[in-house]
């Protein structure tokens, strides 16, 4: 059996050390990251915006807008439910127009039970080239995402990484 550390970028120890070094283990929300999450949701007209950090076995939210219920209380989810983990694995944006038909997420409990229908996420790439997680928006109705909207998310993702690295003393 292959070593999961060699096959799954989510488990890459260098990436996880970067997450820890940047103080992204969660617990408290950063006001600027909250603003970025809210801006992403509002500018794309969707109810939820997140700055999501992907750990080894869970994702944790460093900034949130529009969450409610158990997701807000838990401030994260198991990694197997994380849409954002797809970007950690590919290094690319991840877009879901209709989660109920998307092969990678249609059986996800967040889709089946919690009503997630659309998603767009842009990787948060540190200056060392490691993917920390995603800036993402989530909606409860299917929809497509145009290039201009993805550009907005990319700009906000860049701002989020700047904030993360700045508060860690890297900038």
């Amino acid at each position, binding site marked *: 059996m292959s070593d999961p*550390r060699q096959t799954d970028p989510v488990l890459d*120890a260098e990436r*996880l*050390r970067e997450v820890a070094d940047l103080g992204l283990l969660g617990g408290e929300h950063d006001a600027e990251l909250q603003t970025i999450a809210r801006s992403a949701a509002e500018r794309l007209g969707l109810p939820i915006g997140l700055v999501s950090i992907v*750990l*080894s*076995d*869970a994702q*944790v939210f460093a900034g949130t807008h529009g969450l409610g219920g158990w997701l807000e209380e838990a401030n994260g989810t198991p990694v197997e439910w994380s849409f954002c983990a797809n970007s950690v694995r590919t290094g690319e944006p991840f877009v879901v127009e209709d989660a109920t038909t998307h092969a990678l997420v249609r059986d996800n*409990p967040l889709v089946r039970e919690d009503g997630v229908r659309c998603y767009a996420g842009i990787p948060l790439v540190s200056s060392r080239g490691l993917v920390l997680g995603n800036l993402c928006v989530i909606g409860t109705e299917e929809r497509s995402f145009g290039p201009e909207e993805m550009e907005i998310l990319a700009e906000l993702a860049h701002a989020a990484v700047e904030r993360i690295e700045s508060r860690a003393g890297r900038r």
Partner: protein
Amino acid sequence: VRARRLRNGETQSEEEALYYQGTSRGEAGATVASHAYRGPTATDSEAALARVVGPERGAELWAEACQAAGVRAGNDATPDELQRATDFLVAQGGAVATVARAIQIRIRTYERLAARGATAQGAS
């Protein structure tokens, strides 16, 4: 939080009772049926460490964490005990800390889902 006394003389809070509902304590956490989600156990936690730092180092770290947190050996740790053991690991920093935080989020996910009234059934 009300507590009940187990046959072995230990007490168990309602929260713990829910966590281990339908299981023999020490085997596995209960499952939240709506999300088909089981709360993590000590075995799950050690395995999570092993996936990142390797099996030998993972076992060493988990043993250290259990000792430091006063957690009983084996797979019958309560959620509070898992929380204490993972708190120790969070303090170690680095990749180990991220695994420990992930375990804590998995515990909290289970507790929040169970608390909202989702039907909990024994793990099968």
